[in-house]
């Protein structure tokens, strides 16, 4: 039997199961005055701050800062001092005052604020420990471990030797709790919601957890020996192929003549085209351009209408096979009342993700409706016109908030559209904040060549030497950053384009559904090796005419 918790931090971790139990307190207090306790705790915090300084991660500092400010809160001090004056022992005074504040913060309906109760608990734990003059002796590791605990405080995770921690299984904690934010910052795969079973996990056994779907499996429960890993990997792949098979309308993809698997996906603009996607033999939807349903719905497009559209879509094609691009409004896709009409250069203006972050209610609305529509399944979200990682972090923050209202819903996969040349050159900067990237060749060419995509005769501008090298940089960058990449511009749906992209190493192409049969046919008769040879020549070409001639010769 497999155990499944709530996905916390995605990633796969493997190690020996260790239970973490916080030692219970003793009564023989050695510190009796609150002032003394504040001084000792303050000293410990400043040591901790020095220790984490080199890490440079904002999350660490802010968690410590919040606790330091609570420690120094005049209201807290006054209440504890009063309680002591009335005859309470220091630990009891701390407990009762903290209980009061925990309850007060807990009662706030906003999830993010009530999560701060964890900071209070953490601080209380520290104070009570210091009050009895003791230090927690954290377990020391010399091998890879997975910690199972009812709960774990940020300060504890900070003090562990994290090199050895390969995963966390926690009874409590939501995805916006600090412990999860920290685990994410340290890239420790984490599974939450294990309150009922964490204590039953057999200590000392080897376990593997998958933070992206919450699954855990251990040695006596079916985890194969380390030597069989490759085999397991292989089997998993086969299972996913079978899953595709069970949906008869979606195909298994296509192999090149020399056996390289290429995934063919469909771009979906209007929901009425759904039957075309299914008939096309696509393996899924690589790009669902949601702005078109808004544009079609007009200025008073309601949330309920939007919900119905997503529900219809997900009932036809599982959400796991659909990449939903969040609203890409602005520029050539204005929406009344939201997009600015006074911009001098709308294509370079507030559009795509910039607009979503400026008009947050739009982003929040769309996330809310999508989360309602998807049930408990995995969503893949694609962010339009990403220019830097801060934009993605801002979206994560909003996802975290909205997601709190949907307990049990897995954290969506988040991808970035690569349409701005500067980000195509710096995909490594996105790697810890996105799960995948999608190259939008239409806009990338528009911005790369400073050439309006609507101008006639610009369809082959991607063959300009600099443009093609930019595409290569994007594909290479994604590979180095280990980010799965697909191409969803129109280029992918042309035979020369598909050939050049496959030659560059692209293995996932998303295109207008009507193009899929032709591309499918062409790929099955073409060797990837030929594509690579062609691409090498294209990369050396110094003018577009030569490149065109090369392509023509190759695709005939």
């Amino acid at each position, binding site marked *: 039997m497999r155990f499944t918790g709530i996905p916390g931090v995605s990633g796969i971790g493997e190690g020996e199961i260790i239970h973490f139990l916080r030692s219970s307190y003793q009564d023989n207090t050695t510190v009796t005055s609150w002032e003394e306790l504040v001084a000792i705790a303050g000293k410990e915090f400043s040591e901790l701050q020095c220790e984490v300084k080199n890490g440079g991660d904002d999350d660490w500092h*802010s968690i410590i800062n919040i606790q330091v*400010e*609570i420690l120094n*809160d005049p*209201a807290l001090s006054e209440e504890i001092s009063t309680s002591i004056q009335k005859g309470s022992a220091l630990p009891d005074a701390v407990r009762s005052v903290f209980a009061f504040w925990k309850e*007060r913060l807990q009662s706030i309906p906003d999830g993010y*604020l009530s999560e701060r109760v964890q*900071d209070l608990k953490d601080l209380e734990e520290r104070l009570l420990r210091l009050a009895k003059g003791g230090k927690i002796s954290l377990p020391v590791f010399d091998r890879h471990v997975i910690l199972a605990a009812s709960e774990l405080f940020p300060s504890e995770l900070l003090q562990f030797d994290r090199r050895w921690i390969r995963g966390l299984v926690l009874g409590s904690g939501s995805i916006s709790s600090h412990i999860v934010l920290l685990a994410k910052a340290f890239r420790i795969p984490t599974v939450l919601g294990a309150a009922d079973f964490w204590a039953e996990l057999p200590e000392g056994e080897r376990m593997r957890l998958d933070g992206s779907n919450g699954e855990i499996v251990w040695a006596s429960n079916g985890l194969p020996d380390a030597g069989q890993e490759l085999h397991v990997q292989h089997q998993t792949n086969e299972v996913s192929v079978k899953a595709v098979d069970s949906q008869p309308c979606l195909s298994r993809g296509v192999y090149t003549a020399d056996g390289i698997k290429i995934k063919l996906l469909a771009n979906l603009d209007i929901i009425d085209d759904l039957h075309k996607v299914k008939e096309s033999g696509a393996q899924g939807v690589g790009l669902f351009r949601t702005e078109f349903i808004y544009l079609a719905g007009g200025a008073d497009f309601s949330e309920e209408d939007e919900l119905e559209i997503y529900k219809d879509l997900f009932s036809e094609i599982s959400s796991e096979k659909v990449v939903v691009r969040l609203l890409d409004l602005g520029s050539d896709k204005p929406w009344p009342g939201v997009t600015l009409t006074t911009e001098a250069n709308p294509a370079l203006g507030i559009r795509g993700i910039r607009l979503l972050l400026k008009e947050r209610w739009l982003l929040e609305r769309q996330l809310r409706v999508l989360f309602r529509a998807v049930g408990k399944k995995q969503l893949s979200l694609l962010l339009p016109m990403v220019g830097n990682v801060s934009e993605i972090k*801002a979206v994560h923050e909003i996802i975290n908030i909205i997601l709190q209202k949907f307990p049990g819903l897995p954290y969506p996969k988040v991808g970035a559209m690569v349409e701005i040349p500067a980000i195509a050159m710096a995909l490594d900067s996105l790697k810890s904040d996105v799960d995948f990237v999608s190259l939008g060749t239409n806009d990338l060419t528009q911005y790369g060549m400073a050439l309006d995509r609507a101008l006639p005769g610009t369809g082959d501008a991607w063959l300009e030497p600099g443009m093609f090298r930019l595409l290569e940089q994007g594909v290479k960058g994604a590979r180095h950053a280990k980010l799965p990449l697909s191409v969803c511009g129109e280029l992918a749906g042309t035979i020369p384009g598909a050939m050049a992209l496959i030659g560059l190493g692209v293995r996932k192409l998303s295109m207008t559904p009507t193009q899929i049969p032709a591309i499918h046919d062409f790929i099955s008769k073409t060797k990837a090796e030929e594509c690579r040879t062609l691409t090498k020549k294209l990369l050396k070409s110094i003018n577009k005419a030569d490149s065109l001639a090369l392509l023509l010769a190759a695709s005939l």
Partner: protein
Amino acid sequence: MEQIVKMGDGVGLHGRPGVLLVDLCRKFPDSHIVICKDGKEAQATSLLNLLALGVVRGDNVTVRIEGGDEESAFARAKAILSGEAR
């Protein structure tokens, strides 16, 4: 002085902006800073009281500042609450 400020920060008056406000009180020791929402008041020197206001994104809060350097303190406080100061 007293003015209404609309919260602009991503997730309301939570830990980080709270810490910034407490720190602001330290930088302007001559100003007495109070944040009010729905009839509840919090001294900005107390992070717990600030958090307990339960201010979320988009809320309107009243900022009341009295003291010698109230104008510059207000400008800072407004920047923190509106999310411009990090």
